[in-house]
């Protein structure tokens, strides 16, 4: 059964000499098989969890403050507690629709250690009393789908998933579901719509959490792949060991992908809360500096939707409570680095194009605004934009995000930071995301836009002073 999936591991992951919570098996070539999983302590966390009352397990996860790793950073244990007590059934939907620009971690976790994810799902279902689990994998990830399918088939056959798991009274099905290519489906209510077989458009809020009203109108927990992958380790080692790594507000580790103009791009499991951007970009155990020893121009700290940082913010740690006030977000653990050779307006255009393309069309400011931002920016990048176009971009942006848009401070420009988050006129974050890279680029590198504008000379039009005397 496994012969068809004997591909080499996807490239990119760099192990390093750091504590490993979710990537401990990555070093093994056969890390995705049940044999290897069992030989390296697999399903021990599940066994431990089933040996305790479900509410106990829930409390343990709550006390460990496992922050959601999908982007919003909401603690998993607290999220589980938001479901109403007397409404059944409740569902678990696993968000494996990783598609935020720059993000590359969930695919690795699904391809290299699918059983760890399955174990995490089971622990979540047990602790929060969830009756069925749907594991939604992005449509374009063929290998991840194959690996998870094989792992589920193995786990069913061996009695880890399904009826009376490990001979206990705990029974749950995990259903592998796969998408078909739509970024917006990463938003949790859009994910649920998609799982119901509809167009993947986000639902109107409130309710702000599907925990109240989700899949088929039932209470539903939506958790990210990486969040759930933390649970087996947490069960085996306990909340105390988990919070001993990282800081009090951001405990544990995080998967971070650093890409773009660095010497050694890679995916790292880093210590949460203390590792700084400087460590990541310049540290010898991480990326080892900017390519060709160029100067750093700017970097995106948390996926394509995040406002940009420059060298001024390098010493910020991976800690939401510090990155937010500094004007951006940690998002999904994706850093994209631009060196001094980067054409900033063109770089911003790739992201604005992405969000304009991925708008689902439900909210007008995003559907119309996003595409206009792209069109106007394309004009500027092509060298036919005018001063009015630059102003127009900011006006269109203000219709998606009224008020001050968050941005980083900059000493050279004398700018003070505007803290995250922004106000928005759309249901979900796709609209603001189309404006975020563009706003950062214009705020921090305005001269690069201005130098591309066409100067229009205005010719004063004066009225003809005397009307013609002969009309016919």
């Amino acid at each position: 059964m496994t012969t068809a999936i004997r591909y080499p591991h996807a490239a990119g992951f760099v192990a390093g000499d750091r504590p490993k919570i979710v990537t401990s098996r990555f070093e093994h070539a056969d890390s995705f098989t049940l044999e290897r999983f069992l030989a390296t302590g697999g399903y021990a966390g599940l066994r431990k969890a089933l040996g305790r009352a479900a509410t106990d397990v829930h409390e343990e996860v709550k006390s460990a403050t496992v922050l959601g790793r999908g982007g919003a950073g909401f603690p998993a244990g607290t999220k589980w507690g938001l479901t109403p007590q007397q409404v059944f059934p409740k569902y678990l939907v696993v968000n494996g629709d990783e598609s935020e620009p720059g993000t590359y971690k969930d695919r690795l976790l699904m391809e290299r250690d699918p059983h760890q994810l399955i174990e995490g799902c089971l622990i979540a279902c047990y602790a929060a009393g969830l009756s069925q689990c749907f594991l939604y994998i992005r449509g374009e990830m063929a290998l991840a789908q194959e690996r998870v399918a094989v792992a589920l088939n193995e786990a069913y056959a061996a009695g880890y998933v399904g009826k009376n798991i490990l001979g206990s009274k705990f029974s749950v099905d995990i259903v592998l579901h796969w998408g078909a290519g739509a970024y917006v489906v990463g938003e949790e209510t859009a994910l649920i719509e998609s799982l119901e077989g509809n167009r993947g458009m986000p639902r109107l809020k409130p309710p702000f959490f599907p925990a109240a009203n989700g899949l088929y109108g039932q209470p539903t927990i939506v958790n990210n792949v990486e969040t759930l992958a933390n649970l087996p380790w947490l069960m085996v080692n306990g909340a105390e060991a988990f919070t001993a790594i990282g800081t009090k507000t951001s405990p544990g580790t995080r998967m971070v992908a650093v890409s773009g103009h660095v010497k050694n791009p890679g995916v790292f499991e880093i210590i949460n809360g203390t590792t700084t951007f400087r460590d990541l970009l310049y540290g010898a155990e991480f990326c080892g500096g900017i390519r060709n020893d160029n100067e750093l121009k700017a970097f995106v700290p948390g996926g394509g939707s995040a406002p940009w940082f420059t060298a001024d913010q390098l010493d910020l740690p991976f800690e939401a409570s510090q990155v937010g006030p500094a004007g951006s977000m940690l998002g999904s653990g994706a850093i994209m680095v631009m060196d001094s050779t980067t054409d900033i307006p063109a770089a911003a255009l790739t992201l604005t194009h992405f969000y304009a393309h991925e708008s689902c069309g439900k909210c007008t400011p995003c559907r119309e605004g996003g595409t206009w931002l792209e069109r106007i920016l394309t004009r500027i990048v092509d060298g036919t934009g005018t001063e009015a176009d630059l102003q127009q971009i900011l006006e269109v942006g203000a219709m998606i995000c009224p008020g001050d848009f968050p941005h980083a401070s900059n000493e050279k420009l004398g700018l003070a930071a505007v803290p995250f988050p922004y106000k928005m006129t759309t249901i979900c974050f796709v609209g603001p995301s189309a404006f975020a890279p563009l706003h950062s680029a214009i705020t921090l590198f305005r001269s690069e836009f201005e130098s591309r504008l066409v100067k229009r000379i205005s010719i004063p039009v004066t009225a003809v002073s005397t009307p013609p005397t002969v009309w016919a």
Partner: protein
Amino acid sequence: MSKLNEANIKTALEIISHYPRPKSALIPLLHLAQEQNGYVTNEAMVHLGELVGVTSAEVYGTATFYEMFRFEPVGKYLVNICGTMSCALMGAGDLMHHAEHKLGVKAGGTTADGMFTLAHAECQAACTEAPTLQVNYRFRYKVTNSDFDTMIDDLKSGKLADEIPGHGVVARIRQRIPADRGVGAIAPELVTENPVWMDGKAAL
């Protein structure tokens, strides 16, 4: 043969049985139809509507939202070159330019022999390995121009046929829930009690 064939109807019913509501199976079933015919035909959408109990318009509504579904024939190999930020920074533009010349079609076009469709794609979650591309959703990392040429030649000669199936096939392995092990999907309105393990006692 645009409707699902006998074997695929069986698979479709099995997929539907995994969900509390049949319509949830729609996206996997559209993939199944695309796998069978290379693209999603009108007849298949009507058929899927019958299988899950919705109108063909609803099937069409869902299908047209998602980028992976094609409604007219595409090349045997769909080459998606990523053009989002990390790949763009690392030279995806040049790679696309080269690919257009190599294949003799613009992005979005299909070669005259029906072998290749070239397309511009958005972030593929392999950003550290930029520039990347996918051929029928199988990855190629850090692609240089000569890598691209070799890959195209290998695809033409059939050298990669084992690794890369024709367009429409995504995962080649399906989840099978054994009848004696599965709990079974139950419509939400039929569940009236808290799960048995939520009784305040350990399950084991």
